[in-house]
């Protein structure tokens, strides 16, 4: 580190002058923030796992890892992650092909629907499917049992299969969106030249199209895998009652049971190390499977690709697509919406059983709920603004300043992508509950810091995307007109990337608004977030109120997306 700093200061800039001070400051500030928010928590997890009162201690780690309960959690995590990835990839590929290369009608409508699972947290889906398919109380199962007169439910959602199903519904868009965009950008003559060479449609798909979009498929599949492995909400809602644990839910249970005891947090940290190992292993395997590089498949004049005529299969395929989209997207939202108006959970869904009382309770009487909404708003807006500026700073250093050490900066800012939210939360607890003289535990600040670390990657990515559009010469032109470095930043660069910054803010605000995984470990008596409140009310069995509050959250999220769409529409003017 010492060498690193001297080498940074020692570097002579050929541009010399006033630039030195500002750029260097921005670099060091970004590095400092990232070290404190991202690196320190990770280091603390490792330290606390393998050291006890300053002495190395492997015993605890080995004991925790080899505990049968935890081993079965590891096994469940891998099994669920694998199955969700396989099903999600197949489903995503099927829809991507249908929309990217066939002549199926209503493409725009379907594409819009596919992005909806992106908007809502998967644990809403888990709640909704519980309402429908919980073994005894789920509405579909009750209908089925009254129809057959038996006591066997139609389907049980509280199983590994159920968890896989709900996660698949929410994660398949990763592959779908990646592949659809690759298909759209792909030069159609790559496929046409294969047709001219004598290859039929299916041969071309197998030998040309699939290999060319393989990198996109792999990228999407990896996102699914990592998301599923680190996911907390769905297995927490569907698995607890049947004693099905995954690593994240096991970590949560350990910390919760320990009730703040240090040994409990250490055990949680040990499992976190294990979880990170699983994620890294998954990343490594993905890299092994995909040795091929990225191809440049986007060149030439863009012609419309030849669409495959579905002929007789068109209407059945359209029916299947619309039906499955309805089941995946619309049905769960509808269930949550309608149950939010029920007088009590389990009553038949008829008009006379509907009421506004749940809304009165959550929005009027419950201070806890009102606090949680306010907390989430403050946290999302606050962390959105701060993280967005942090992202701009980091992206500016990496793209424009390019000092020695930018690799480290880039790595630190992208690291949170692969850190599960729960692991991050434990790291933040270890750093900010007195270990370094600052105790933020049970305050809103600890959640705030965790959010910054969690979303800095999004902010950095979005800011670099817009900064890369601003060519060097634009700033240099300002300098040549007599503007100082600071003035050219203020008057040229910042205004040009402003639309990107606003979009970047929403990319943080929206997921932060519904965040559960990190805050569920960090909340205190007065610092519940919206996600935590919904989760807590639902676990207490107040299903109707949880649904009403979830409906409120859905409303806020939809509003946020409308604003985002409005903002990015403006962006085209750039």
């Amino acid at each position, binding site marked *: 580190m010492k060498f690193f700093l001297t080498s940074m200061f020692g570097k002579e800039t050929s541009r010399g002058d006033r630039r030195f001070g500002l750029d260097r400051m921005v670099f060091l500030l970004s590095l400092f923030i990232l070290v404190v928010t991202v690196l320190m928590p990770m280091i603390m997890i490792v330290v606390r796992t393998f050291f006890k009162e300053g002495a190395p201690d492997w015993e605890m780690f080995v004991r925790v890892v080899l505990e049968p309960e935890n081993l079965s959690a590891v096994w469940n995590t891998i099994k669920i992650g694998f199955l969700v990835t396989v099903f999600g990839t197949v489903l995503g590929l099927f829809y991507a092909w249908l929309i990217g290369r066939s002549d199926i009608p209503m493409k725009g409508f379907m594409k819009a629907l596919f992005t909806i699972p992106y908007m809502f947290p998967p644990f809403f889906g888990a709640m909704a499917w519980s309402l429908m398919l919980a073994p005894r109380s789920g509405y579909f199962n009750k209908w089925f049992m009254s129809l057959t007169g038996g006591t066997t439910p139609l389907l049980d959602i509280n199983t590994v299969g159920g968890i896989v199903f709900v996660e698949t519904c929410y994660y398949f868009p990763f592959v779908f969106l990646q592949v659809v965009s690759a298909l759209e950008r792909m*030069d159609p*003559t*790559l496929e*046409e*030249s*294969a*047709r*001219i*060479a*004598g*290859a*039929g*449609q299916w*041969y071309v798909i197998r*030998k*040309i199209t699939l*290999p*060319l979009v*393989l990198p996109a498929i792999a990228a999407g599949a990896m996102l699914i895998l990592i998301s599923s492995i680190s996911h907390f909400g769905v297995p927490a809602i569907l698995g607890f009652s049947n004693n099905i644990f995954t690593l994240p839910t096991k970590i949560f249970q350990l910390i919760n049971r320990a009730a703040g005891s240090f040994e409990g947090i250490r055990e949680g940290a040990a499992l976190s190390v294990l979880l990170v190992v699983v994620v890294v292993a998954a990343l490594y395997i993905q890299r092994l499977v995909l040795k*091929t590089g990225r*191809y*440049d*498949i986007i*060149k*030439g*004049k863009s012609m419309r690709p*030849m669409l495959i005529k579905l002929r007789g299969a068109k209407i059945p395929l359209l029916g299947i697509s619309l039906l499955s989209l309805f089941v995946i997207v619309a049905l769960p939202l509808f269930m949550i919406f309608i149950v939010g108006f029920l007088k009590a959970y389990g009553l038949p869904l008829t008009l006379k059983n509907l009421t506004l009382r749940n809304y009165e309770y959550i929005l009027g009487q419950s201070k806890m709920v009102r606090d949680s909404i306010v907390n989430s708003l403050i946290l999302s807006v606050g962390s959105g603004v701060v993280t967005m500026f942090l992202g701009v700073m980091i992206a500016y250093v990496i793209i424009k300043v390019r000092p020695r050490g930018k690799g480290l900066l880039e790595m630190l800012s992208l690291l949170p992508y692969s850190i599960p939210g729960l692991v991050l939360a434990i790291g933040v607890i270890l750093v900010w509950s007195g270990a370094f003289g600052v105790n933020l535990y049970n305050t809103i600040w600890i959640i705030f810091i965790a959010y910054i670390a969690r979303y800095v990657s999004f902010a950095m990515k979005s800011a670099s995307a817009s900064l890369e559009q601003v060519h060097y010469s634009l700033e240099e032109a300002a300098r040549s007109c007599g503007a100082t470095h600071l003035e050219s930043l203020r008057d040229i660069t910042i205004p040009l990337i402003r639309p990107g910054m606003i979009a970047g803010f929403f990319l943080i605000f929206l997921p932060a608004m519904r965040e559960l995984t990190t805050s569920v470990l960090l909340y205190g008596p007065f610092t519940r977030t919206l996600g935590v409140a919904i989760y807590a009310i639902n676990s207490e069995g107040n299903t109707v109120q949880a649904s009403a509050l979830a409906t409120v959250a859905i409303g806020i999220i939809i509003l946020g997306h409308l604003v985002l769409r409005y903002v990015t529409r403006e962006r085209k003017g750039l």
Partner: protein
Amino acid sequence: MSRILLKNVTKQFDTRGGGKVTAVDNFNLEIKEGECFSFLGPSGCGKTTTLRMIAGFEDLTEGEIWLGDRPVSVKEKNLYVPPEDRGLGMVFQAFAVWPHLNVFENVAFPLRVKKTPSGELREKVMTALDHTDLTGAEKAFPSDLSGGEQQRIALARAIVTSPSVMLLDEPLSNLDPKLRESMRFEIKALQKKFNFTIIFVTHDQSEAMALSDRMLVMDMGKIIQAGAPREMYEQPANQFVYGFLGQSNFLKVRASEGKIFPAGSEVSLDSPVAGAPEGGEGLTASRPNEIILGRTAGEGGVRGRVEKRLYMTYCVEYHVEVAGQTVRVHGPHRDALPEGSECFLGFRNARWYDAESAEAELERTERQVI
């Protein structure tokens, strides 16, 4: 038999607004066996669409296409042979070599589709690579090669099955000028060796003239003129073809009593203008390199004044003002006339055209937007 026949071929596209645009309008053409035939025209004129209909990537709205004795698209009978069954070779503008296959596998692809036995496959691929100067590069991947080499892979891939018809969709426009010239010769040499019929789509008139036995100029979906390059260059059917086939001046003129006067001038051109009527207004078309620049009235020609002189590589270009209009003239570098000097222009091979309607021009620009 590899004659290509297009009968009443029409293609309409639906526009976003719900209307229809006719990209190719009642197109009739017969291309002879072994001929090199170019489609020339501005972007949006329908030349690429026509080629794609021959290849089978677009269905027809009306008409029929025959390859040799075999109908491949006949709208009336709803007959449509997919591209893979038409047995054509094709080279695309953006090369379209597959980045995930090495050079050998790229070229071998058409043979693998046909399940050619490996010995024969190897032999044919190596022959194709040899003809395209790619021997030794079999193992390389396209991303390691230059644009010219990538286009040669595409050529090798197209000739490996010895097709009788080769479609070239602006294959040279992504290459730099020097490479473009040498590739022209290579294509010609390959044609001699393999004796295939070529249809060549381009917007570069010198490329078309250099390569083709016959060519056509298209505009707004219609054939404006077809013929041998020389015939087209010397006798362009209208102002559009004249302007498209080379640098040109269009001088507004008036004909009267067998003489041609620049608009607004009482002094005649003093040069013959082919096709000029007895009287009326129109345009005199001339090429900058076919105008003789004289220094004195004794050399004949119409009086002008050098407004501007540009020193270029092949010639000196003068912008000469004649009765309020500007004429571009090319002259030798030696003894170049200074700006502002008086001169006399003698027009050779000048042609008379009726002025084109402004409407056609407007429609042309709109088409390019689509």
